């Protein structure tokens, strides 16, 4: 049986990058301030000193240029880890990610693989206001050709990057900056993880709480509180936002017959819309009540704490909503 260690989300991410750099000399990390600064969020702190500037490349502010370079390097046999500091800046690189990385394999008739991994800080929670706080997983989850992963737990912070680097196809990895300092126990020997399936993190029979990203620990906490009140909910971490694993949540619903989808992203045209639509199509007759959604409020995120908090579902919102759904 494996021992458990206490690790911050940041350290889990970092240990994965270190391991990847050690294991495969084709791997290198490139991004703004990943080197001398130590990473905007200190994820890569010390790696420049350990691996040198060829493996840990500071790049100028030029998201399209360096992301595209990562794609080109991948085409030519390298395994780049591109860090786009946060998803907010990734719009500048979106053309490269979608029109090139996601498209080249199909458009070339199967000739060109783009094994690039693009990491992005994501989400709300640090009072960084409207240009630095977004949850834009839905943009990327819309795009065929991409594998889109959401790092909602410490196990995945440790393992998803390692698995992503095994993929011959481009992977987008969303890391949540609000969770960086959060510590959790994970098995000492934790490593690569499955990156095809969602995961039931808590079994339950009354309702399926389907979520991802920062929603995961919030939902687990809510589930605990609800359990105290006699409500037994199942918690599912979607993990793979594209291609979405629907089996896991559809199966869950055949047991619970009710579902609530929780996410920080804006409500319209979101991951939760997709989950609801699939349940509609494939498990309609299993449902005892409509699937509901708790999403980010549709507003550019404001700066003050109380408004920021009000912009995304909180634990008490989830508890309240589930309670209403189960005990109307």
């Amino acid at each position, binding site marked *: 049986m494996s021992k458990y260690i206490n690790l911050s989300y940041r350290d889990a991410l970092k240990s994965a990058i270190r391991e990847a750099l050690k294991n495969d000399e084709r791997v290198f990390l490139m991004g703004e*301030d990943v080197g001398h*600064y130590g990473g905007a969020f200190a994820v890569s702190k010390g790696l420049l000193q350990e691996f040198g500037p060829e493996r840990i490349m500071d*790049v100028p502010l030029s998201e399209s240029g360096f992301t595209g370079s990562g794609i080109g390097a991948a085409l030519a046999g390298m395994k780049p880890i591109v860090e786009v500091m946060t998803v907010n*800046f990734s719009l500048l690189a979106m053309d490269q990610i979608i029109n090139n990385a996601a498209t080249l394999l199909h458009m070339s008739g199967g000739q060109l693989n783009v094994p690039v991994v693009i990491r992005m800080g994501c989400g709300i929670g640090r*009072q960084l206001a409207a240009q*630095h706080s977004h949850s834009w997983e839905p943009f990327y989850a819309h795009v065929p050709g991409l594998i889109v992963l959401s790092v909602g737990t410490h196990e995945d912070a440790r393992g998803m990057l390692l698995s992503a680097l095994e993929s011959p196809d481009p992977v987008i990895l969303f890391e949540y900056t609000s969770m960086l300092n959060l510590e959790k126990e994970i098995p000492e020997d934790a490593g690569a993880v499955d990156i095809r399936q969602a995961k039931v993190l808590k079994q339950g029979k009354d309702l399926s709480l389907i979520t991802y990203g920062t929603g995961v620990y919030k939902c687990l906490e809510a589930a605990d509180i609800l359990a105290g009140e006699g409500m037994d909910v199942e918690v599912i971490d979607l993990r793979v936002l594209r291609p979405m694993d629907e089996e896991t949540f559809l199966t869950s619903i055949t047991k619970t017959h009710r579902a609530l989808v929780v996410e920080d992203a804006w409500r319209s045209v979101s991951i939760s819309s997709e989950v609801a639509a699939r349940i509609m199509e494939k498990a309609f007759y299993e449902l005892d009540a409509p699937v509901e959604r708790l999403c980010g*409020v549709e507003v550019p995120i*404001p700066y*003050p704490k109380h408004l920021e908090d009000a912009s995304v579902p909180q634990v008490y919102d989830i508890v309240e909503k589930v309670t209403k759904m189960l005990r109307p």
Partner: protein
Amino acid sequence: MKKTASNKPKISAEEGKRLLHQMLLIRRFEEKSAEEYTKSKIRGFLHLYVGEEAVAVGVTQSLKEEDYILSTYREHGHALARGMDPGEIMAEMFGKLEGCSMGRGGSMHLFDSKINFFGGNAIVCGHLPMAVGMALASKKQGKKNVTCCFFGEGAAAEGEFHESMNLAALWNVPVLFLCENNLYAMGTALKYTHSEQKLEKKGPAYGIETGSVNGMDLMAVMEASQKAVDYIRKTGKPYFLVCYTYRFRAHSMFDAELYREKAEVEKWKKEDPIPKFSEYLLKEKMISAEEIQEIEGKVEREIEKAIEFAENGTWEDVKDLTRFVYTESQRS
């Protein structure tokens, strides 16, 4: 500001005091902000301007009320030099409704349309295209105002810099591209950001009139920016001005400053624009030591007032969260 024959600015004692006051106001305001940050009154990203005051103060001297200003997330200095109310800025950073952006923006998003201050933009280089567009509007409307756009040397590596310079020059619009080259973009030194580190070599690639100046020297900045603005007003064309400067503090409050030596910072502190300008005024007998103390005192009171204003501000009601996603009369 009067001009001597040599085009050197010659200032009166009164102007000298006003300028010193502005620089000191920015300096103390920033120091106070850092303090309030450690007290958690201010949160999020806070980017201080300490060390770069001569640029904001120098450049704004050449601007008129009707001119437009756009800046970055490191914009307190520009906002103050422009004449934004310190209380409204502090309240903004406290997240209060009385802040210049209703508390919605915080430190990185100061807006005040009544003084033509258009941010407070936190996507690096994202405001350059807008600046060109505002200048284009002025041209189409037959207005004679200038659009002044502040940005860092890091921003100049972004594609939008290239596109904006080209568009402004193609369209002949009155915009001042004001590059604050403080040698670092977060922790990335100039040499890792630009293959050609002499940024003033970039202007000619667009056929844009270009200048550079020691940004630690207020009088030099005033002279260079006045020259730039005169050129823009006369020709209607863009101008690219690079100010060499340095930030004494960390990039933001999150920054451990691993990327530069303390000694380098200390060396630059010897160029501190504020003592430098004070000494000049003293030497020229335009000011006395007591008068400097008076200014310091005045600044202290202004900042106290600003803090008080911010403290007394109100929190926006959560139910108003979605106000202004769309214009009120239009959509809910």
